């Protein structure tokens, strides 16, 4: 089972709703992230993505408050990975701030989910190959047990 705590981004970049779009753009390009969490009184209230910034630039908006979107879902660190993956794949929600005891402790983005799925696939391939190997040996033993070779070898 994939733990949310182990795949989330721990140092979340946050911004105030009153900040300018330019500040947000600077943060995004300096930290190379795909979006920021807008916080007010240390509570996540919205998301600013790259797309929101571009919308803001083309329509001459000034502050983060004008372009931020509310397409996010607050989750707890005990949330199920597959539940989040399903939500990501079916809908518009791409960012999941992780909140524990009223405190923002991390952020799950599309990138984290895809990378975790990729690593999980690799892990499963190894497990599956190990299972195949064990059954392969079992079958070899079975065939040996019932074949005349056994009588030849052990009499």
């Amino acid at each position, binding site marked *: 089972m994939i733990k949310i705590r182990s795949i989330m981004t721990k140092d979340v970049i946050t911004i105030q709703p009153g900040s300018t779009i330019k500040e947000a753009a600077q943060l995004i390009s300096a930290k190379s992230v795909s979006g920021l969490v807008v916080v007010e009184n240390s509570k996540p209230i919205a998301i600013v993505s790259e797309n929101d910034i571009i919308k803001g630039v083309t329509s001459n908006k000034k502050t983060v408050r004008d372009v931020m979107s509310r397409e996010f879902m607050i989750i707890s660190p005990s949330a199920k990975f597959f539940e989040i993956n399903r939500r990501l794949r079916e809908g518009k929600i791409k960012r999941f701030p992780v909140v524990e005891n009223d405190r923002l402790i991390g952020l799950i983005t599309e990138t984290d989910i895809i990378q975790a799925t990729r690593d999980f696939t690799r892990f499963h391939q190894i497990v*599956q190959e190990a299972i195949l190997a064990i059954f392969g040996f079992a079958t070899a033993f079975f065939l040996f047990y019932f074949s005349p070779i056994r009588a030849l070898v052990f009499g």
Partner: protein
Amino acid sequence: MARVSKIMLTDVPTLKKEAKIEKAAKLLAQIQVGCVVIVENKDPVGIVTELDLVRFAVSKGKSLKEPLTSIMSSPLTLMTPDMKLDEALKIIDTKKFRKYPVVENGALVGLATKKDVVNAISDNMRFHRNIQNIVLILFVLFELFVFVIGRYIPQYLAFWA
């Protein structure tokens, strides 16, 4: 294993090489894809992502009237429609990009994203794993059955002896 042509996005947002940055910004603000491929007579020459545009918005001394080629990423890492998904995954693991234009005979035919490739492989694996496990269980049951029959049943069936 499925091929790239099965999972690629076919209506790729494209812009001509001569287009201005302003046009790309307006296009990207409307669509959800997150990138636009720059083409020259159907031949992809570069890609502009949302991050490129955000970086542009921060940089000083550049105007929206400048040509797109000044901020585009180039050269491109391309895929072909008949490429297998695990080959595509190998490229994704080494290149670390998220979007790859798909090219057939020099012309742009689609866009493959990391998300789609990874999800397709994950689904494919889950499906095959289930089938494989069912086959394995049937096989073991068969082995047990033969083992029991071979060992104990003959003495009850050997009425001809």
